[in-house]
């Protein structure tokens, strides 16, 4: 398979690899995919409780080069965004940016799912910490 330069670049120098403390109430963790399918993405975001802005993002991915590149890219994109802004990232944006071939579109879908899952996890945590705030549950 021929890879685009951007996929290769993210594969060679992945951004924001690592883990945040998943028990930190300010951290949301999304884990999507399955080993049997050949792709597992873990995306974590750290959210500023005052501003609601994503301050940090980390990922670890088991998967092909396109899956690694997709998750590396979204860690860059979500940083500095509010949760609602981050939810607007579409898999097609990821696929376009990385010039993914049709057979690799599922990698970008997975990355979008990972963002949603991380935000949902964060909001769930916030909801259980602030039961008086119905807007976050």
């Amino acid at each position: 398979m021929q890879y685009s330069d951007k996929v290769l670049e993210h594969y060679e120098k992945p951004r924001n690899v690592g883990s945040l403390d998943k028990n930190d109430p300010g951290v949301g963790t999304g884990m999507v995919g399955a080993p049997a399918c050949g792709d597992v993405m873990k995306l974590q975001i750290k959210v500023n409780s005052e501003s609601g802005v994503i301050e940090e993002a980390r990922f670890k991915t088991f998967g092909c080069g396109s899956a690694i590149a997709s998750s590396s890219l979204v860690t860059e994109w979500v940083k500095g965004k509010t949760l609602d802004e981050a939810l607007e990232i579409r898999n097609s944006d990821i696929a376009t940016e990385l010039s993914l071939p049709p057979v690799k579109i599922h990698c970008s879908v997975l990355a979008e799912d990972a963002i949603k899952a991380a935000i949902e996890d964060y909001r769930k945590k916030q909801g259980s910490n602030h039961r008086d705030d119905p807007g976050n549950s």
Partner: protein
Amino acid sequence: MKKPIYMDYHATTPVDPRVVEAMLPYFTEKFGNAASRSHSYGWEAKEAVDKARRQIAGLIGATPEEIIFTSGATESDNLAIKGVAEMYAERGDHIVTVATEHKAVLDTCKKLAKRGFKITYLPVRPDGLIDLDQLRAAITDRTILISVMHANNEIGVLQPIREIGRVARERNVLFHTDATQSVGKIPVNVNADHIDLMSLSGHKMYGPKGIGALYVRRKNPRVQLTAQMDGGGHERGMRSGTLPVTGIVGLGEACALCQSEMAAESARMAALRDRLRDRILAELDEVYINGSMEHRLPNSLNLSFAYVEGESLLMGLKDVAVSSGSACTSATLEPSYVLKALGVGDELAHTSIRFGLGRFNNEEEVDYVAGRVIEAVQRLRELSPLYEMAKEGVNLKKVEWAAD
């Protein structure tokens, strides 16, 4: 060292320069048609073909008349299986084969099944070998053919063809073996191994692409085939078409070289292969060998690197030419059906790499490849959420995955 280092000899081999040398005159000054009887151009082409037939027959213990030239092993498999099925259709309609066969056998059987033939696909044990009792139990009085490969193209394991041949002989069933990966690498003898039909290919043994052969037994029993290619009646009527003399000369020379160098070469291959395995296993944990180590081609190694997806590993090995059983290298997104048949879980099947060593590899290259594999696996495991979870003591089999 020339890079990328080629370690994918199961896919194809370069043509040995001595083979090229033998072929060259037959492109230009000796260009005759081997079927031309009326002049010396034809005679010298026929002589060259006859010599190649002797060289091929010599390697496998056959007689020259039993060699039918084809375009390669895929055609040989098609001709053997369809040819027997059609020729012996009155005697029976049942064929026994194995789940891990090459697609040239499996898809041929699938097509015959559509035409009403019954096909039994034997399972394999976790080591990749079939169970002979299951083979015996599968044979009925309607069985006309057993088709079991000798060496598997993905994992290199060797089926017990001599015992399979004996079972076939006892039950009066024809035995075909696809020996594409094994002929020239390890001893194969059609008489000792009780083989009735055998497929082989030039480009897997340092000969050219586009030429192969089907061995068809002439005595005890005399095997007949319905031709799949009609025309001038070449090759005892079994495969019409003007003989590609250059390719045939190349295949013959390749066989002769393999025969004279087999003992030394297979020992050297096994030593290189074991060195590669030992280096990798010494540095990395959770690496699994796919298929029997004992019953295996000397040049073959198939490893699963847990927690690291195969295609991403290939990307990390960009100056090494190997192949992966990973789904992502194919368009289907399905992991290898061969590894699946061994009972290798999908999660490990996605992490497999096939190393195929060959005549032009050396120790320096093996050490380099081992080093690159170790580096790449370590780097990708640092990136792998699965490796992190496993190290934390999470049982990955018990996790409920979002995409399951």
